[in-house]
């Protein structure tokens, strides 16, 4: 029996605001337990939530980045349940009127629809102390603004799920609203998966998988679930609607013991927070503060700049890199040349040194200058690599570096002829071999001349003059 996986994702992303969503406690990561708390976020009696404007702004940015419609009139609701990491015993979230609806993300040929994005507060952290049967509560992260992105069940495979999470992460990073680090918990993904027998029209029962800490876990968990559910269905058994936990070590999922199968969250409108009204101007202002998004840049790079898709993809994979590239080509539009230099040489230097784009000493204009120097025939391609390395390590402008290091290409024909004469004189055997038809020797002779000329070797000029010299 063939089954079609029907997968939906719920992604929680921490918004990178300075303070928490309903109070002024710092949202900075870390800190000793319970040192980033106040009466509000620790749920003391008499306190009231005050909505953080930037959290709303970032939620709108996220929605715009993911192709959503913004709900101009959105409001908050209480989700009531008891758990030690939830001090008020309710979470303030958006149930009825979320800030964004109906978005879409292109994962390369397939569109995954987004059902909604809403803003809510995070809970605290619970640590289990098995030795004396206590659980310990840290409320530092309680009240951090989260957006929850809920997809339609459009995803059909582990690969698609990974691609989707990658696309969402990229867009959120471009929008500047979340650093999307799964390993640090600023991006959390839950998977809802069911199997539909081929040809069936009704959706199967779904299981929810939690505790996925990396793209790899997401893929493995989905693959395992497809296997687990197919086995069950093949043997005529039912899928239980439940929450399951993925175990990284075994690569399997297991059922989470749930005290209450069905939660009655008793949602009702949050009376302490007025509904938020956006005007069209508000949205346009926020939109205008968004940088160009990855998809748009990809299209520009491939369609307008003519870069190969792989190169374009690599460039957009890091906003800082793409911004850098854009900065360079805006000064000197050799799109391919600059892309090559960056993607081959610069990335190599970055990878080797373990540094990120943030710590780059080179301003984008200087990359442009370097490529221009090469194009104008003032330095050779090899010399350019050396110049780049020096720029990377110490900074400085390419012209100055070329001059200081004798890397400017020799343009004086006379000097070249002189060296050629010397080399030919010293390598009579090779000259004879060449003249007798062994054309490969040319390369050797060129190498000798280049070596002698040093860094200022001008391969084109050398080739021309050498050819002339050998003809005689």
């Amino acid at each position, binding site marked *: 029996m063939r089954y079609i996986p029907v997968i939906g994702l719920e992604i929680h992303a921490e918004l990178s*605001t*300075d*303070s928490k969503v309903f109070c*002024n*406690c*710092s*949202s*900075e990561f870390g800190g*000793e*337990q*319970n*040192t*980033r*708390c*106040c*009466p509000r976020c*620790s749920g*003391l009696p008499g306190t009231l939530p*005050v*909505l*953080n*404007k*930037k*959290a*709303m702004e970032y939620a709108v940015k996220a929605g715009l980045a993911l192709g959503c419609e913004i709900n101009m*009139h959105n*409001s908050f609701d209480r989700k009531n349940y*008891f*758990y*030690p990491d939830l001090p008020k015993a309710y979470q303030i979230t958006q149930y009825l009127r979320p800030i964004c609806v109906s978005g879409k993300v292109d994962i390369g040929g397939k569109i995954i629809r987004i059902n909604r994005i809403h803003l809510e507060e995070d809970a605290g952290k*619970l*640590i*289990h*102390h*098995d030795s004396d*049967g*206590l*659980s*310990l*509560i*840290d*409320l530092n992260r309680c009240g951090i603004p989260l957006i929850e992105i809920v997809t339609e069940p459009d995803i059909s495979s582990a690969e698609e799920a990974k691609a989707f999470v990658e696309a969402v992460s990229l867009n959120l990073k471009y929008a500047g609203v979340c650093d999307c680090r799964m390993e640090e918990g600023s991006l959390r993904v839950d998977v809802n998966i069911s199997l539909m027998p081929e040809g069936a029209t009704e959706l199967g029962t779904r299981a929810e998988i939690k505790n996925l800490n990396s793209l790899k876990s997401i893929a493995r968990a989905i693959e395992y679930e497809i296997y687990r559910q197919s086995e069950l269905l093949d043997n005529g058994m039912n899928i239980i609607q439940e929450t399951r936990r993925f175990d990284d070590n075994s690569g399997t999922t297991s059922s989470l*013991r749930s*005290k209450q199968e069905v939660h*009655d969250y*008793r949602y009702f409108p949050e*009376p302490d927070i*007025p*509904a*938020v*009204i*956006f*005007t069209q101007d*508000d949205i346009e202002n926020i939109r205008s503060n968004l940088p160009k998004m990855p998809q748009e840049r990809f299209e520009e790079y491939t369609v307008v700049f003519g870069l190969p898709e792989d190169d374009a993809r690599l460039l957009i994979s890091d906003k800082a890199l793409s911004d850098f590239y854009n900065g360079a080509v805006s000064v000197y539009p050799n799109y391919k040349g600059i892309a090559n230099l960056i993607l081959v040489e610069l990335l190599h230097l970055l990878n080797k040194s373990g540094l990120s784009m943030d710590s780059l000493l080179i301003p984008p204009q200087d990359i442009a200058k370097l490529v221009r120097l090469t194009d104008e025939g003032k330095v050779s391609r090899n010399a350019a690599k050396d110049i780049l390395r020096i720029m990377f390590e110490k900074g400085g402008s390419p012209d100055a570096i070329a001059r200081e290091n004798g890397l400017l290409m020799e343009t004086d024909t006379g000097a070249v002829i002189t060296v050629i004469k010397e080399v030919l004189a010293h390598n009579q055997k090779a000259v004879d071999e060449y003249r007798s038809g062994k054309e490969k020797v040319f390369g050797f002779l060129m190498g000798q001349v280049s070596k002698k000329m040093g860094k200022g070797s001008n391969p084109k000029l050398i080739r021309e003059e050498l050819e002339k010299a050998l003809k005689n």
Partner: protein
Amino acid sequence: MVDVELVRYLAELCRINMSEKELKAKADEMSDIINLMDSIKEIKICNNSLIPDNSIYYRDLEEDMAADSLDRDEILKNAKGSREGYFSVPKVV
């Protein structure tokens, strides 16, 4: 009629322990109280704009500004159980 089973469910939902005796007493009281509340059921919701809605313009919201948190001692001082700077509870099953 509000029966004991419903009250038992509600008491569980709101996490208040009640003896059988108390459940029964509350069930009786709740029946009377719900009778009083039942007049509301005859209302037909026809005009959604009538539903009151406190609202605020986005531009009037409070700016994002981190300020000093409360001293941990102050946060913990009313807690009956704390350990190394954490609130402590008996194990969560």
